[in-house]
C-alpha cells in the first residue's frame, strides 16, 4: 500500500490505479463501519475507566464538587475499613469455591460429552441452557430452591434422611449456596471451551495409547489434559475474573448488604454499596482499581505459571 502510494502517478498502470482507489474506498468504508463501535468503546469503556481512576484519588459524593485526597481512599481501604478484609476473605473463598469445582466439573462433563454417541447434540444443548438464563432470574429461582422449610433442595435431602439445611439463613451455608449457584452458572461456558479443545486432540494419539495398553483414565490425564492446557488455563483465568467481579447473584440471593452477617459480602457488593447506597464514589472507585490490580497480578501469575509448565513439558 505504502509503496503504491509513493509511486509516481503517471507510471501507475490504469488497473493498479483503479485498485488503489478501490482499496482506499474499502478502507474508508471499513473505518465508517468500525467508527460506531470505536465510539462506544471510547464513551462506555475508556472514559469510565479513566474517570474512575481520576475519582479514586478524590472524595466525591455525586453532588458536591470532587475534592482531591491523594492516596487517602486507598489508605482507608487498607487500614481503616474492617469490611475490606471481610470482603477480601469472602471474595477469595468464593473464587476458590467456585473456580475449582467449575474446572473439575467442566472437565468431567466435557470428557463425557466428547463422545460420538446418538443424541449427544441434545445433551450438549441442554447443558448450555444455564448460560442463556439471566443471572437475576436464575438467582430468584435458586432462592426458592434454597428455602429452608419448603425448598426443593432440602426436600430432596430429606429423602436421604438429611435434616433441614439453613442454606441462605446461616452465614456458613450462605457462602456455600452462593458458590453452588455460581458453579451451576459457570459450568456450561467452561464445558463448551474445554469440549472444543478436546475435539481438537488428534484421534490417532488415543489409538496409539490404546495399543500401548493405556486405560481411559490414563489416556485422559496423559493425553487430553496436557493437550488442552491452554484452554484449561483460559477457563481458570476467566473463572477467577468472573468470581472476583460477582455481584448480581449475591445481590439477589442474599441482599444488598451481603448478609447474613456479612457472610456473602464480596467485593462486588462492597463496591455497589459504597457507590450507590453510601454515595461514596471516590472510595468505590479506589476499591475497583484495587480489584483490578489483584486480578491483574493473579492473571499474570497464572499465565506465567502455565507457560512455564508448558515449556517444561
Amino acid at each position, binding site marked *: 500500500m505504502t509503496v503504491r502510494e509513493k509511486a509516481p502517478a503517471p507510471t501507475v498502470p490504469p488497473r493498479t490505479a483503479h485498485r488503489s482507489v478501490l482499496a482506499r474506498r474499502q478502507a474508508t468504508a471499513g473505518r465508517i463501519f468500525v467508527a460506531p463501535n470505536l465510539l462506544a468503546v471510547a464513551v462506555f469503556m475508556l472514559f469510565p475507566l479513566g474517570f474512575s481512576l481520576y475519582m479514586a484519588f478524590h472524595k466525591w459524593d455525586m453532588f458536591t464538587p470532587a475534592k482531591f485526597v491523594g492516596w487517602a481512599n486507598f489508605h482507608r481501604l487498607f487500614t481503616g475499613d474492617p469490611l475490606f478484609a471481610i470482603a477480601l476473605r469472602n471474595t477469595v473463598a468464593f473464587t476458590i469455591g467456585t473456580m475449582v469445582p467449575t474446572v473439575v466439573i467442566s472437565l468431567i462433563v466435557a470428557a463425557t460429552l466428547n463422545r460420538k454417541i446418538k443424541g449427544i447434540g441434545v445433551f450438549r444443548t441442554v447443558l448450555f441452557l444455564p448460560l442463556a438464563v439471566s443471572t437475576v432470574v436464575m438467582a430468584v429461582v435458586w432462592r426458592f430452591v434454597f428455602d429452608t*422449610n419448603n*425448598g426443593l433442595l432440602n426436600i430432596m435431602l430429606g429423602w436421604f434422611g438429611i435434616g433441614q439445611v439453613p442454606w441462605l439463613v446461616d452465614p456458613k451455608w450462605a457462602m456455600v449456596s452462593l458458590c453452588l449457584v455460581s458453579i451451576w452458572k459457570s459450568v456450561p461456558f467452561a464445558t463448551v471451551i474445554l469440549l472444543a479443545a478436546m475435539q481438537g486432540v488428534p484421534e490417532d494419539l488415543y489409538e496409539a495409547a490404546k495399543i500401548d495398553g493405556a486405560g481411559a483414565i490414563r489416556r485422559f490425564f496423559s493425553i487430553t489434559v496436557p493437550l488442552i492446557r491452554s484452554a484449561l488455563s483460559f477457563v481458570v483465568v476467566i473463572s477467577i475474573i468472573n468470581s472476583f467481579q460477582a455481584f448480581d447473584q449475591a445481590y439477589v440471593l442474599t441482599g444488598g448488604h451481603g448478609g447474613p452477617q456479612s457472610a456473602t459480602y464480596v467485593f462486588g457488593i462492597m463496591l455497589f454499596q459504597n457507590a450507590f447506597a453510601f454515595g461514596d464514589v471516590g472510595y468505590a472507585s479506589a476499591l475497583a482499581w484495587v480489584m483490578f490490580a489483584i486480578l491483574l497480578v493473579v492473571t499474570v501469575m497464572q499465565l506465567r505459571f502455565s507457560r512455564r509448565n508448558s515449556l517444561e513439558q
Partner: protein
Amino acid sequence: MADTQYPSHPGLERHHSRPFGRRRLLRGAGVLGAALVTATLSGCDRTDDALTFFFQANPEEAAVRMRVVDEFQRRHPGIKVRTVRSGGDPMQQIFTFCAGGKCPDVLMVWELTYAGLADRGVLLDLNTILAQDPTYAAELKSDSVPALYDTFEFKGGQYAFPEQWSGNFLFFNKKLFDDANLRPPGRWEDAWSFAEFLESAKALTKRDASGTVTQWGFVDTWVRYYSAGLFAMNNGASWSSPWNNPGRMNFDDDAFIEGVQFYADLANKYQVAPTAADQQSMSTTDLFARGQAAMAMGGHWRYSTFSEAGGLDFDVTALPVGPKGNGSWSDVGTTGLAIAAGSPRKQEACEFVKFVTGPVGQAVIAESRLFVPTLTSAVNSAGFAKAHTRVQNLDVLTRGPARSRHLPVTPAWERVDALMDRNFGPVLRGVQSATSFKTDLAADVDKLLRKQ
C-alpha cells in the same frame, strides 16, 4: 462485492435493475440508525416546562396521588405536572437522577434517609418558602403534628413538609381474638404490657398434631431489625442521643437490649412468631390476610391489602409496653415532599408542595383510605373516619402521629443501617444474645458517627 465487480458505469444496467442493492441497504440502515440516535437524544432532552414530581407508590397508591395531582392541575391550570414513579430503591434513583443533572423538581423523601440528601445540598431549605408566606407558615405549623413536622428539620433547615404518617402499630384478627376470649387495648393510653402481649400471642398460636404451626400469634410485616428497635423504644429506650444528627446511638443501653431480646425471643424462644427461616417461604402479610396469624405489626400501608382480603375481620391496636417503658409509642414513620435545590421551577414546585401538604391535598389523602394524613384537621376529619369504617379503634390511627417517637435522623443512616442489619441478624436468629450489641454494634456505630 457487487459494486467492486460492477463499478458505477452508466451503461451497467445490472446494478440499477436490482430492486434493493447492498449499497442502498447500507445507506438506508445508516440513515435509519442516525435517525434513531437523533430521536433518542432529542427524547432525552425534555424541554417541556412541566413540573416533575418523583414518588414511590404501588398502583393503588399511584392512583390516589394522581387524584391529588389532577386536583392541583385543575386549580392551577398554568402548571403542568409530570410524574416520575420510582423503582425498587428510590434513594438510588434520586442519586442517579440528581447526579446526572435531571433531578425532579419535587421529591418524595423518607424520614430516615432524607438527611443524606439534605446534607449534600440536594434539597431546598423550605424555610425560604415559609418566610415568603408567613400566613401559610403559621397555619401549617399550628395544624401539623410537631413530631412529624420536626422530623424534616436538619441542621437548622426545613427540608420537607410531612405528607403522610407511616408509623407502626398492630393489626389484629377480631375473630381469632374473640374465639380466644381476648381483647387487645383500644387506645395508646391503655396499652398492654410485654407480658400480656406474650400471653395473648401464646394463646393465639396453634399447632397441629405434628407440631407444625397452623396459626401464628404474631407476625411482623415491617423490617425485622427496625421492629426490634421499636420494641426497644417501647421499653423506654431511645435509639439515639439526640434523635436529630446524633453523636451516638443507644444500642448498648440496657433498656434497648432488653426490648430487642424480647422481640427476638418471640420467634426463637416462645415460638409465637415465625423465625427468619420460616419467613423465607411465607409472606407474613399473606399469613395475616389469610387468617393464619392473629396479630401483624405494620403501618397503614398494609390497610388496603387487609381490607381487601376476603373474610378477614380486623382492627388495630397499640404496641405493647416493656417493663422499663413509659407508655406505648409508634415510630415517626413519615414521608414528606421536598423541592430540589437546583430546580428551575421552584415557584411552581412550591405551589405544588403547599397544595399537597395543605388542607386540600390532605383532605384527598384522608378520604383515600390508603394513607394517614399528617395535618391534625385532616386526620380528625369526617372523610378519614368514613374511609375507615371497619376500624373500631380509630383512635390508634388518629392519635398515631402524635404518639410517635423519633427514629435517628442522620446523613450516615445508610451506613448505620448496614451495620444494624449485620449485627441484628444473629440476635434475631437466636444464635447470639442482644447483649452482644455492647461490644460490637454500639462501638462500630459510635465510631462511624464520630467520623461524620
